[in-house]
């Protein structure tokens, strides 16, 4: 597989960090603090972003917000017809979701199908008070009635393009690109 051709750099490390800081503040403002708050990232990059948001919230409020990670592979709507390239990894939710305000975190919101799968999976673990959705990038082209409560940046894109989110922990740099989809 050839690497996708990069068309434009949309967010660099500073923009990336500012967006996360703003989202952290918005989460605290909307929920009036961290009471009953938990962060759940969608693997793999959502997990890293959830961890970063947890650190930011700790920096603002001074106490820890629990965070976990979901692997949604088994909940995908194409689970029975699609053979994944990557082996799934375990879901880690080290807390009870019952009566919690869940902030679901992902890197890119596109069709909304991942969010649907993630919501279904969370509900299998219990009944949260609410589920709110935070994404670094909203690129449009929804196929499901899903919207994000917190958005780092809206990036209008063509469905022929790819939006790539890179994070320090797994890709070396915090950056967001638009790239050509592979032919």
């Amino acid at each position, binding site marked *: 597989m050839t690497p996708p051709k990069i068309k434009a750099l949309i967010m660099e490390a500073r923009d990336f960090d500012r967006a996360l800081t703003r989202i952290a503040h918005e989460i605290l403002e909307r929920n009036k603090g961290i009471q009953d708050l938990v962060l759940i990232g969608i693997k793999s990059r959502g997990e890293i972003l959830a961890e970063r948001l947890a650190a930011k919230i700790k920096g603002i409020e001074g106490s820890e917000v629990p965070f976990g990670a979901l*692997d949604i*592979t*088994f*909940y*995908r*709507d*194409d*689970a*029975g*017809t*699609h*053979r*994944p*390239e*990557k*082996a*799934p*990894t*375990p*879901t*880690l939710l080290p807390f009870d979701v019952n009566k919690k305000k869940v902030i679901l975190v992902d890197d890119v919101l*596109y*069709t909304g*199908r*991942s969010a649907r*799968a993630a919501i*279904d*999976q969370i509900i*299998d*673990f219990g009944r949260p008070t609410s589920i709110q959705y935070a994404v670094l990038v909203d690129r449009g082209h929804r196929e499901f009635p899903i919207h994000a409560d917190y958005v780092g940046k809206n990036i209008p894109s063509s469905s022929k393009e790819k939006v790539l989110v890179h994070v320090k922990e797994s890709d070396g740099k915090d950056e967001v690109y638009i790239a050509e989809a592979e032919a």
Partner: protein
Amino acid sequence: MTWKSKDLLTLEELSASEITHILDTAASFKEVSTRSVKKVPALRGRTVVLFFHEPSTRTRISFELAAKRLSADILNVQTASSSLVKGETLIDTLKTLESMTIDAIVVRHKCSGVPQMLANITKATVINAGDGAHEHPTQGLLDLLTIREQKGKIEGLTVTIIGDITHSRVARSDIYGLTRLGAKVRVCAPPTLLPVGIEKMGVEVFHDLNKALDGTDVVYVLRLQLERQKNNLFPTIREYSLLYCVNNERLKRAKKDAIVMHPGPMNRGVEISSGVADGPKSMIDEQVTNGVAVRMAVLYLLQGEKEEKHV
């Protein structure tokens, strides 16, 4: 890495990367079994037939649980209560099932090669749950998963398999899987219980248990298949036990951190002493737990054709 096969018939036909992919997938299914809702919707609406022509408790229950935890529907077809006792051939039974649009069929049969034969004539996925003295691939995979979890790797380990190698499909699947992933395999049994030419599978042959255990990382004890011992392959069970029973005294020859495995059901005091079976080195319960995870991974990975779709 994508595993593209329609069926799982043997470990012989799998590459090292395919085996690793199945084990990695199984590792995440283990987490599902620890939840309070032990179920994911991955195979919702699929029908899995458990087609068992030989007595089996743990394999059948393990497959049944695996399919249920993936939300598939299960159908149990057992020889005694099926049309096979009225003289219907296996192929006709399969065609009947296929006409009812099943998605996967898990087969156990006393004859080697039956799953292969069925796989050639059906569009459904066929999973071998043990055929004669040929292979038992999901047992091989769960053993590999257990070893990998306990030792962190498989490459470079020494694994000693003890017992009735001739009649053991478990031994064959384990040997294929372990050698493919780079382990050194020893087999140990009286000559009458070793098939001719076993060394061609890349194993080292021992007849003396003490020597075979020297410095080994994994001690794999096979069940002495009492139901298959009608040809006087050894004088008495007592004598077999004196020479080949794995007990704590003999286990001292293995590495300090060695683990002991057994595919079950055990004949306590025949091939394994209770002290070892219930001791701290025993991974027998862990094997059973991993069995469900491995079967979930196999059922999941074999469903559906490869199709590019972005979420």
